[in-house]
Structures are given as structure tokens and as C-alpha cells.
């Protein structure tokens, strides 16, 4: 059990985890302020006989302060978030050299199409494997997502990447894995009664291992 965000295994983990931590600190301060304040008031100003409360309708300066501070913080947070958002999901965020992999989601499986030896999708040497996503490490991967039936969602927690797969739309997402290993790809959008079983293995391999695997898989697929 890892009581934090999952293992960091892609280039997105830096900005996303950093932002998460930053928000946690900001909200943590607000949280402590409010909860400690509440407990303090509850104890200090509890009813005592013969005492009357302080009669006031407010204090404009205090209100201006506690309106401005959250407002400034939120706008700043928005700007910082947007900076990373554009890098991760923005229209032109996909690196031009990204390696394409086609992912077709259907109830309840992932059909993953590899570009074959030529590195391009839509050519004759493409082949499709069910529920197994192999990716080379350290290289931007562009997944082209399509759906057969309902909305699914492509989610690898260790990569911090999530993208809904919407029928009728061709959606591209990208990520770059940094740590070789085996992970799980899950569907995170309710897609029917087998939703919880819509799972695939993700294998992050070195380029050599990946190439070897692809050669073998392509051969098996062509049989």
C-alpha cells in the first residue's frame, strides 16, 4: 500500500504530482485555518450565563481581505495549471515524433493495433493484439482512441494519463513512459456490466525488448 499517488512512471508525473502537492499545501492551510478556528471558537465562545454576544454586522475590511486572498490564489493556480494543461492535453501538445498505437475499445476489451515494422498505422503490416499494450520506454507514445459502442476511458494510473474514448470521435492522447515494468490499463468510465473487467496489461519495455516482442507478435498475428 502506497498512501500517495501511485508510482511515477511517466513524464506527466512531475507536473501533475507537483501541482497536486501545491494544491494540497494551499488547501491544507485553508483547512487548518478553518478547522482550528472553528474548534477554537466553539471552545472559547461557548455559552456562559450572563454574557451577551458581541453585536456586529460585519467588517468590510476583513471581508475584502478574505475575498481577495482566495481570488488571487485561485487565479494564480488557474494560470499555473493551464501552463501544464497545455503541455499535456493542449491541441498541439503531441510531440511530432510520437510513436502511434491504435486503441479500439469495445465492451469489454481493448483491441490494440501496433504499427508494425514501418512504424505507421494504417499500413499492411499493422497487427492487433487483445488486452496487451506494449510500449517502448522513454519515447512519446501517441494513442489513437476509438470506440466500438459506448464511452470508455483509457486510464493508466502510474502514467497519470486518462482520456475518454468516445464513439464517433477519433481522439488522440499521448504519454511517455519512464520506468520499464508491468502496469494495468483500466476503463474508468462505466461502460456496462463488465466494466470492472475491462482491463489490459501494460508492458513498458526497452526499445530492444519492444522490437523483439513486436517481431514475434507480428509473426504470430500473421499466421
Amino acid at each position, binding site marked *: 500500500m502506497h498512501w500517495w499517488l501511485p508510482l511515477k512512471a511517466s513524464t506527466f508525473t512531475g507536473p501533475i504530482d507537483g501541482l497536486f502537492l501545491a494544491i494540497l499545501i494551499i488547501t491544507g492551510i485553508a483547512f487548518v485555518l478553518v478547522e482550528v478556528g472553528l474548534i477554537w471558537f466553539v471552545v472559547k465562545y461557548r455559552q456562559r450565563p450572563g454574557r451577551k454576544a458581541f453585536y456586529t454586522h460585519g467588517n468590510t475590511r476583513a471581508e475584502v481581505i478574505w475575498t481577495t486572498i482566495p481570488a488571487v490564489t485561485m487565479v494564480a493556480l488557474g494560470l499555473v495549471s493551464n501552463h501544464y494543461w497545455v503541455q499535456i492535453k493542449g491541441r498541439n501538445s503531441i510531440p511530432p515524433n510520437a510513436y502511434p498505437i491504435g486503441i479500439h475499445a469495445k465492451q469489454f476489451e481493448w483491441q490494440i493495433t501496433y504499427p508494425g515494422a514501418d512504424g505507421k498505422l494504417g499500413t499492411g503490416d499493422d497487427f492487433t493484439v487483445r488486452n496487451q499494450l506494449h510500449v517502448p520506454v522513454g519515447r512519446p507514445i501517441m494513442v489513437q482512441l476509438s470506440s466500438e459502442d459506448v464511452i470508455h476511458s483509457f486510464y493508466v494510473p502510474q502514467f497519470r494519463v486518462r482520456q475518454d474514448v468516445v464513439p464517433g470521435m477519433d481522439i488522440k492522447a499521448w504519454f511517455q513512459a519512464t520506468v520499464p515494468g508491468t502496469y494495468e490499463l483500466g476503463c474508468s468510465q462505466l461502460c456496462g456490466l*463488465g466494466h470492472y473487467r475491462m482491463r489490459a*496489461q501494460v508492458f513498458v519495455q526497452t526499445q530492444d525488448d519492444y522490437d523483439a516482442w513486436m517481431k514475434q507478435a507480428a509473426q504470430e498475428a500473421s499466421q
Partner: protein
Amino acid sequence: MRKLGAMAATGAVLALTLAAWTRQPTPPAQGGGTISGKVKFTGTKPVMPKIDMSEEPKCKAKYQGVPTDETVVVNANGTLANVFVYVKSGLPASYAAPAPAGPVTLDQDGCRYHPHVLGIQVGQALAIKNSDGILHNIKAKAKANRPFNISQPSVMTSNKTFDKPEVMVALECNVHGWMHAWLGVLPHPFFGVSGADGSFMLKGLAPGTYTIEAWHEKYGTQTATVTVAGSETKTADFSFAGK
């Protein structure tokens, strides 16, 4: 002749009722004519794709080699298995058969359906069994009947019945995309599926002229007309050509 047929039919109905009443799962109308035959296969045998069951170790362990798809199963003697043969027309309009009491079992074992093609009577129970103990869902893409989509997360049996004749109802498991089965729902018991030797048999037919149809999931349908008199056995062979 027609009168005779009607009488025979009435007799059959009576026998059927009796059989149902005594809860005999055996084919109801004993005696009568029989149509039997073989389904031959010509041409080149298509290569069926291999199924990668590595994500379901429980299923994979049930096979010695690598299991393949069951869309076309050609037997060793050059016949075609999994062909559904049934009486399409020729039964008197008044013909009615009560559903047998016993269920027809469809087993999910080793992430495959057993049998791959099966027939059932209207109103008869279909016992859908999960022997694998892993999640299967059973989606029946029925058109005339109520479609259903149920799941079985563990070893269990679910029962379903069909109200209307329908040839064929496609069954599939969406968790394991390769799992398909075909179900023929008929208002009478005169149907069969070609087995490991490619033969089928329709028993207990009253005298008359029948159109029988052979259905295969890939190669489509073929029909033949057979006239049966008395308790004779008539032969009707079919032949499907590989494409």
C-alpha cells in the same frame, strides 16, 4: 391424407402432453419417421485464428495446445460440425408441442461455449452454466424474443426461456470477445446439430412433406424437401463448400 396427418398430429400432441405431464425429458413423439443425414464439407478448410487466453489462466489451463476459434469446425472425416438442421415448414398449422420439462444446458467451460450451436424449444428452459468461475456475461442478441444481457461472476447457473421461435439467436460474451454461441429456438422438437461425425437426426416426425433447413454461421443456409411416410428413415445430406 390430411385427415390422417391431423389425427397423427393430435396423437402426437396427446403423447407430448403426456410426456410433459410425466416429466420425461426424452423426445416426446416416439415412433414416426426419421430424417437423418450428414453435412459434408468441400473445398479448402479455413484456418481458424488462435485464441490467446493468457489473461485467463483458469481457462488456458484447460487446453493442451492453443485453442482456436470455432466458427468453422471441419471433422476428421471431412464433414462439417455445428450445422443446425431443423424442420422449417411442413408441420400442420395446428401443431403444438408443449415444452419439455428438462432444460437444455449451455456450458461455459474453458472460456468457450459448449455446445457452440444448440437448439431449444419455445418455453423450454435454457440452463446457462458457468463452469469457469470467472466473469462471463451472456448477451443474447434476439430479435423476435426479448434480448437479454446477464452476467455470471462465479460458478453458477442461470435459467432463461424464449417465447417465440427464432433461428438463430446469437449469444456472445463481451468479456471474452471470442466466445460466440448460436441458439435455434423452435416451436417443435424436430431439430438437430451436426456433431463430431457430421451427422444429424430428426426423429418422431409424423408422415408428411417437410422443408428442412441447414444453417451454418459462416456458410449460410441450405434447404431440402423430404417426404416421410410411416416410421421410415429418410436421408437428407447437405454439403457446404469452403470459400
